[in-house]
């Protein structure tokens, strides 16, 4: 897989992990407070592992994660959205996990053994995120608010995947193929997220020891 695609994956996981962590302390259920915090930690761990793979043993994964300008990130618009209600939050988690599973499964067959090995490790861990998302999907799928949120986010979900993998997502989710909100463009909501995400890092001079 090319470096740009790997960075897109890592940026998705970093930014979604960051968005998920916004529920820490304010989720509607204690159980979900713990679940979202754990999932966020795990997604950011996946981002770190992919950044480390991209930069190599002597590279600086932190620089890649935090020292780029917002427009240089390769994340899909889906993960950037600042969603404020539970229906949209769960709709995004579910759509993202279905798309991510398709992407990771493809990556497990990568010709580079380091990429394939890391994909297998990520896949093993994502299994828990999928069960969490699936459990909520099962519970909410007939609720009109949830359905509306899924419909609204659907073009964004398609944009997580390259065109050749979108057919499988269409099949799994059961919605019609529509124009995707593609990777490569950013929403207005990324810049404020970036401001906050990189605030501490930017407060210290480059090369600071933490």
């Amino acid at each position: 897989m090319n470096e740009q695609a790997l960075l897109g994956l890592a940026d998705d996981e970093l930014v979604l992990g960051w968005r998920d962590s916004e529920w820490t302390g304010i989720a509607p259920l204690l159980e979900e407070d713990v679940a979202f915090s754990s999932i966020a930690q795990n997604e950011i761990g996946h981002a770190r592992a992919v950044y480390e793979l991209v930069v190599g043993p002597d590279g600086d994964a932190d620089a890649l994660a935090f020292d780029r300008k917002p427009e240089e990130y390769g994340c899909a618009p889906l993960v950037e959205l600042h969603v404020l209600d539970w229906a949209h939050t769960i709709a995004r988690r579910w759509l993202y996990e279905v798309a991510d599973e398709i992407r990771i499964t493809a990556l497990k067959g990568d010709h580079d053994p380091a990429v394939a090995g890391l994909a297998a490790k990520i896949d093993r861990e994502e299994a828990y995120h999928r069960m969490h998302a699936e459990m909520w999907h099962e519970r909410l799928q007939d609720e009109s608010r949830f359905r509306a949120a899924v419909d609204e986010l659907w073009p964004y979900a398609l944009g997580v995947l390259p065109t050749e993998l979108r057919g499988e997502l269409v099949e799994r989710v059961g919605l019609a193929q529509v124009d995707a909100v593609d990777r490569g463009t950013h929403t207005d909501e990324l810049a404020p997220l970036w401001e906050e995400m990189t605030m501490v890092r930017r407060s210290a001079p480059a090369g600071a020891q933490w």
Partner: protein
Amino acid sequence: MVAEAQVWKALEQIPDPEIPVVSLVELGVIRSIDVRNGHVRIEFTPTFLGCPALEVMKRAMEEKVAGLGAEPQVEVISDDSWSTDRITPAGREKLVPTAARRRPGSRTSSARRRAARFATARAAASRSSSSRRSSQALCERGIVGAQAVDLCAFDGEHDAVGERADARRAHAVR
């Protein structure tokens, strides 16, 4: 000249930062040790990629190797080679009785209880109330090793059920 066996022995002294009742060796995260001309190369596979203690473990290993007078090189292997099946029999012994001792009137230290909870959190990235059942399902599908199911038996909810059952049994005996 440092020997491989010495390195294994030294690493056995490093407790897992989150479940300190077991060592890194018992947890099965040391995949290999290669000793060559005073250089020690350790292949290390973290249990999960969100692990915040990764750097702490790396440093602890480097210090142990340096303490033996050798040059350490710890390589983090991010592939699928770690599962709960890699926990050694000795490690399992130390983990499982922790749950068994969590009965009314037992004197389980809060540190051990905390460690057990970490094990659960680690085994199931999301701790839904069905985490134990879920882990069973994952185990059946071959996604996680059998040990994860044991670890999830530490789940607080499960324990509470066990304790209520114990109380009923005690009542029946009286």
